[in-house]
């Protein structure tokens, strides 16, 4: 690599820096616990991880669902419309993406279930 190439390299580096900066400006989301959600102020979607409680209510043939999401300290009601992940049921961990409405309900636009990995199995207990 001669000095001649350091200029294009710098240009590419600068472009990448700009692309990363501009792309992350509007699209980074906060990854919050349920407790932090209450005190979080600021616009934009956030992600909240928690465990689905037993109060799951499905309507509209399973396309609309409400449930309570709870983590170690607090809980929040969640409202979601769309296809549910396969393994969705009380007791699993989900990551809800959306925002907290003024009604105190978390309106999720995306609901991701933590999917079981090849590398994690329930150890056999005797």
């Amino acid at each position: 690599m001669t000095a001649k190439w350091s200029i294009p390299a710098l240009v590419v580096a600068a472009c990448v820096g700009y692309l990363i900066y501009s792309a992350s400006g509007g699209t980074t989301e906060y990854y919050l616990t349920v407790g932090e959600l209450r005190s979080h102020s600021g616009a934009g979607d956030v992600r909240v991880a928690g465990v689905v409680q037993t109060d799951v209510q499905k309507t509209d043939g399973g396309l609309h669902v409400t449930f309570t999401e709870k983590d170690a300290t607090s809980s929040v009601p969640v409202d979601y419309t769309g296809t549910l992940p396969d393994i969705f049921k009380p007791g699993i961990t989900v990551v809800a993406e959306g925002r907290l409405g003024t009604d105190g309900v978390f309106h999720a636009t995306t609901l991701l279930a933590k999917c079981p990995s090849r590398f994690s199995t329930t150890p056999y207990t005797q």
Partner: protein
Amino acid sequence: MILGYLGAGALLAALVMGGFSAVLSFWAGRQQNPIMVQVGRRAFYAATAMIVAAGGVLEWALLSHDFSLAYVTEHTDLSTSTALSAAGFYGGQEGSLLYWALVLGVLGSVSLVASASLGLRLAGYAAGLMAAILSFFLVVLVLVASPFDLLSITPPDGLGLNPILRDGGMLIHPPVILAGFASFAIPFCFASAALMAGRPDSAWIAHTRRFALIAWGLQTTGLVLGMWWAYHVLGWGGYWGWDPVENVALMPWLATTAYLHSSMVQETRGRLRAWNFGLVILAFLLVVFGTFIVRSGVVPSVHTFAISAIGPWFLAFLFICIVFSVVLLALRSSVLGGGAEPVAPVSREGAFVLQNLLLIAVVVVVLWGTVLPLVSGMLGQQRVVGAAYYERAAGPLFVVILALMAAGPLLPWRRAARMPSARALMWPGAAIVVVLAALLVAGVRSIPALIALPLVAAVAGTCFTQYARLGSGWARLPSMLRRRRRRYGAYLAHLGLAVLVAGIGASHFWQQEKDVTLAPGQQVTVAGYTLTYTGSEQRQLADHTELVALMRFGDSTLEPARATYSGLGGQSLTHVAISTTPVADVYVVLAGVTADGSASFSVFVNPLVSWIWAGGAIIIVGVLLGNIGERAPAVEAVRRRVPASVLT
């Protein structure tokens, strides 16, 4: 029970042989002792033989349902089919590490055969490094994550495999992608050995070219198969989600792709030595980094990672690899001086350099998105990025790479005094105009689509131009194809990538989705495709029940379903129904059926998705045609100085 002892014993023996091979090979390489280099190499073969034996024992235990082994109990049960039981070998943490060591051992042994022709020092160091990496995996397998741990009481049946993994994809995707990562250790070992031995010439590139291609081919196949599997099984209508697990598989592929191109510059023009060393090292470090991420759970992901004991081991290994590489490059920077002639910006090698910079830029973008939760978590509130970040930041870079793919092959080597003729530019230029016009006429106004898709057509046009040149002399065609098979294989791979990117582009820009609830007899129309819901039925199968909705679509019936596995706490699983044509996939997911018989669906129309799979297949055909049976490049000069008896 006895199988557990046999397997553990074989692993221990492999560790002893591997450690012995590492120590002896380094020492013998330093002393340039031909006999001891040979002994060190053979010790590596012995370690590999022991790993093969351990692998055989594990496979035997899985197939014979030996539930005294914790690993067999945790990953299979009596109802697991033979094929999936066999796949349990790499289906879990411990087994996949053994599989990794197995691939490294076998391919590493093949690469070490005849490595003495590279000179004793380089051969010794390469064997030593490879044995050291193999020994690391064996230490983890013996001490932390043994697949041969025994249960104190043998249970009557195992726990079985997760339903999502009970699929044909399980049989092909994991072994291919794991093998792709494991095999990239070979170029890394030879590159590092060449640096240690002070041999920065191209001999190591020629010797490991085939392994780099094998690694790249396997990684490509593994990525495409992974996309195919996710698309057919997960039921969200897509195939790529920019999840950390996907990102850490993509990054080594990008670095390997860069290396395949830049190594060509060194082979033909003697340039970019330091850069090539850097790339090989980077690609290997990314593999180790990815393994650490996937096995440690340090970043949030849709996938639940095993929070396992091997995380710290891989972190330590990553740390050692980084320190080793940086120190090595720093110590040897003096011998890496490029040489006389600088690379002309507008030339074939200039295009390669720019392409390399851009690929590494994409790696940086993806890496930043992947580690952001980790970095921001340390500094304060944890933040994550979604698909939009990757599309905005990496998209423009991919577009420039496409433009380079279209222009680069037309540029001559060295200085572009002879610019590509107007005739050479005719086909790619025409392709751009035709596709752009077609898109505008069709009413497309999305700027990214109007830039990306004509460029894809230009890439294909360039490939056809290269093939058209062949056509000018039909009589010489067979001999030309044979002599230049590497080149024409590469153009076929380029063409395959163009087809694949066209599929990704079209399905990304024009996917349509509709969520509907239908009573029997009602129909839904999405993007001009009409589906009629005719009713639902319950089916009882061997290990699960299926609730099937029948959708009439033209002359055929689509059967999206929800399966329920009673054996696993009533876990349910979507069975997606897909109707594939070359133009578009109609993709139907059943959300549920209510008591009154009406059913809810998500219907997707995904244009050109089948092109992605076809493009992947064309790439692999190109790699195979270009390289199978090609004679190994001669390294005669060194070979003569080494007695034939110590070559293998």
